């Protein structure tokens, strides 16, 4: 499956001018017990885990439990207390679609305008061979044998 990198308008850290950057953000269907939604999510090879906003868990009816271990550590040493929950994830289209259940983490962001969805190794990249084509700005994902695939009819 090929995913075209998503264009994002931001300000250059060097000049302050508006610039267009392209990032491997892909549409991801998140399926909870009561609702589902498709959201853009950043595929991040530097992330050990997949982490989503707690606000999404609340909206989709995903039960969360607090972790007993140490908090996550982000770049720069920021400590993140996360919650854990089971969610069904799906990527692709009618032509090629993959759905699986994942045990992922949820983070209560300080503000909605800081929320992000991160697809890291656990729950996502472990299940795919990923090729990041920086020239064409295309991410290619090929499922591997570890993907605990479900049939689309296994849930709503």
């Amino acid at each position, binding site marked *: 499956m090929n995913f075209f990198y*998503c*264009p994002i*308008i931001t300000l250059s850290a060097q000049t302050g001018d508006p610039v267009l950057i392209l990032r491997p*953000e892909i549409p991801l269907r998140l399926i909870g017990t009561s609702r589902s939604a*498709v*959201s853009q999510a950043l595929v*991040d090879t530097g992330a050990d885990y997949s982490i989503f906003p707690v*606000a999404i868990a609340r909206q989709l009816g995903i039960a969360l439990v607090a972790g007993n271990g140490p908090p996550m550590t*982000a770049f720069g040493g920021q400590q993140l207390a996360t919650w854990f929950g089971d969610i069904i994830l799906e990527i692709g289209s009618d032509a090629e679609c993959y759905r699986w259940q994942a045990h992922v983490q949820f983070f209560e962001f300080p503000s909605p*305008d800081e929320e992000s969805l991160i697809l890291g190794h656990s729950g996502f990249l472990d299940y795919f061979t990923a090729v990041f084509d920086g020239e064409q700005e295309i991410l290619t994902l090929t499922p591997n044998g570890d993907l605990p695939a479900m049939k689309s009819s296994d849930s709503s």
Partner: protein
Amino acid sequence: MHSQKIIDHPRRPKPAPIEYAGQWVAWNPERTEIIAHARTFAEVHNAATAASQPNAIFQRVRRLNETIVGRL
């Protein structure tokens, strides 16, 4: 710097306009039009549902001064 040909590929989604920076938006399934926007995910999800758009694609548009380097 990316070539304009790479950026303008017909299958590549369009960037969210800067007036939505920091907000959650809902795109139509073709990702050609923003059909709702709000401050929170719940608000924009409810708006898309009310508009009978079950296949909307949600995106939290980055703030203009936001550069991600591994920070959540």
